């Protein structure tokens, strides 16, 4: 596995975590 492939996998995980946190912040913001 090249460094580029490994980094892209890590980035996908990071984006998933950020997306989940953003949605959570939005839901709190609109008082879900």
């Amino acid at each position, binding site marked *: 596995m*090249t*460094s*580029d492939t490994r*980094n*892209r996998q*890590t*980035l996908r995980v*990071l*984006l998933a*975590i*950020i997306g989940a*946190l*953003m949605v959570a*912040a*939005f839901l*709190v*913001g*609109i*008082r879900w």
Partner: protein
Amino acid sequence: MTPPIALEAPPGRRPVTRRPNGPVLPPPPTGGGDEPEREPSDGPPALDNLRLAILFLIGGESVFFAALIAALFVLRLGQPLWPPPFQPRLPVGVTGVNTLVLLASSVTMLIAVRALARGEEARAVRRLALTAGLGTLFLLVQGYEWVRLLGYGLTVSSGAYGGTFYTLIGAHGVHVFGALIWLGVTLVCASRGRYADGRTAPVRACAMFWHFVVGLWPILYVSVYLL
């Protein structure tokens, strides 16, 4: 330490240097981000370690600001009137022009990085300096507006209105200040020729953070000043 032995090369071939204590080790794995630019390829650019690190930083900052904006909306919805009565109005016009100044700094940063990639170092240094100047102007205007608002009686303890304003805009201002320091160091290194021979990764890292700080501002401007 024994010096390497230079073997005599046959006619027409380059001499080979061999270490006396074993074979030459393979080169370290690439991906650190500071190697010269590779030949352009058809696919997307390689995601090196430095770029990934900056994306981690930007990701953390994005969540931080998302939480602050969420807090702003929670506090706003809890108020019957926004802005509350007897509180000064925020300077929408001046800050709008200041927004354009910050957006222009992102354009000059883009030009600087492209100039550096083409090897035009002098042009890149000038554009980096212009970017830093525009960023400094943005901060100075923001500071001036803060002083005026404090004079009108809007402080961080003026309820949710003042508290959210100074927290959100102040957090962004701190980020612009930090990005300016980073840009200043990058500018000094660029003017000393540190990024010659295509080693532009540190400049690209600085540019990524700068674009993030600039891109964040219109969201804050709309959330805090316009809505």
